[in-house]
């Protein structure tokens, strides 16, 4: 690696057609545009059911310019495993030349990955298929109407964790998918954020150059589900990084590296107050979330071996 990429290095060619029905200001749409730019032209994409799947492939139209396949909600990773095994068999039988390097990319939302697709994902990671799995995490089942998922953070309002006298939104903490992937001893795991696109581009390129199962966890702000004005998508994605709620890092063969260091962290309130799903939180609940974020940052700093995410500055 010579110099870090900048926004000028992103390719101009669009491989994700407009006219799809994703919401105004959708964070996942920004991710899909840049993921399709980063992967080679003949990459085979398998997708789990989710917002992106239902909005981009309304029969008889598709927004994708890559070979693209969808089977069911739970099996995006299993389909990708099969595609990868089929490519191997075709090479062995001489149908496609041995030298042809076709990548396999699998994508799912947080529901299709954290909850419903976890067994397929675990199987794919454990069997060691040469597949890159990207999860775009909008922290609930947004497509069906904002029901909680295993990725919903503490305190968030959803239609199945309502706010009232007894319930105060989600009372459980977010599932740690990265640790689950790392427990399978995979060669590459990373987190990306749509506000940091050169970083996203570089991580996808790097992941594709590594053989074996890889997982990338992407932050994906959701306008209707998180209850904010559409123009704030990138502002929220940036604020998540600046408050330490989201940390951009990668783990390559066990080596941990934070790619977006934050020397002075902002209080978590700055991130929460931008979103309507956290509107009900009291000062005490916010301080509890701050405590969780502090814990996470402490853990990250311990893994990095130095202070990469700084203390909170008020």
């Amino acid at each position, binding site marked *: 690696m010579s110099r870090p990429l900048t*926004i*000028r290095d*992103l390719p*101009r060619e*669009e491989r*994700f*057609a*407009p*006219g*799809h*029905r*994703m919401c*105004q*200001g*959708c*964070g996942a*749409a*920004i991710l899909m*545009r*840049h993921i399709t730019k980063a992967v080679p032209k003949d990459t085979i994409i398998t997708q789990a059911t989710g917002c992106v799947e239902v909005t*981009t*492939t*309304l*029969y*008889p*139209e*598709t*927004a*994708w*310019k*890559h070979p693209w396949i969808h089977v069911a909600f739970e099996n995006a990773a299993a389909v990708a495993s099969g595609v990868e095994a089929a490519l191997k068999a075709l090479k062995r039988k001489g149908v496609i030349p041995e030298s042809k390097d076709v990548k396999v990319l699998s994508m799912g939302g947080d529901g299709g990955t954290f909850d419903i697709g976890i067994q397929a994902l675990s199987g794919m990671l454990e069997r060691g298929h040469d597949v890159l799995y990207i999860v775009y995490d909008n922290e609930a089942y947004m497509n069906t109407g904002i029901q909680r998922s295993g990725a919903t953070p503490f305190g968030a309002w959803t239609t199945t964790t309502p706010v009232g006298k007894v319930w105060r939104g989600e009372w459980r903490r977010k599932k740690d998918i990265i640790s689950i992937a790392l427990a399978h001893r995979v060669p590459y795991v990373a987190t990306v954020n*749509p506000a940091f*696109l050169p970083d996203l581009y570089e991580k996808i390129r790097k992941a594709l150059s590594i053989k074996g199962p890889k997982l990338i966890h992407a932050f994906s702000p959701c*306008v209707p589900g998180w209850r904010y*004005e*559409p*123009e*704030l*998508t*990138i*502002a929220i994605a940036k604020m998540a990084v600046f408050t330490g709620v989201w940390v951009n890092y990668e783990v390559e063969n066990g080596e941990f590296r934070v790619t977006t260091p934050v020397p002075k962290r902002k209080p978590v309130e700055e991130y929460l107050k931008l979103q309507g799903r956290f509107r009900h939180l009291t000062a005490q609940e916010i301080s509890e979330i701050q405590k969780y974020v502090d814990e996470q940052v402490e853990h990250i700093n311990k893994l990095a071996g130095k202070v990469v995410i700084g203390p909170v500055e008020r």
Partner: protein
Amino acid sequence: MSKSLPSWRELPIGAVILQPGSTVRYKTHEWRTLRPVINQDKCIRCRLCWAYCPEGTILELDKPYTTKAGKVYNITYEVNYDYCKGCGVCAYECPVKAIEMVPEVR
């Protein structure tokens, strides 16, 4: 709808979609209530609006442009109004506020 839909015999096996990127047939401009207008003289060609647009409707064109102050740029950013949904991410993220969201009048 007057045109009858194709029967299952006429569809390809598995109802595979054979045209990549065919959603371009569906124009999403009618979702828009605010229209982004780029002020070409103010724009510093930082590429952020192009990068952050969820639809890819900010076009990066190899069209030279000379500003009123006499600065020459080799590229120009224009909005593809056929697909812009008017979310306003471009205007919000523009570091020099060269994009204005004006109410759509039809």
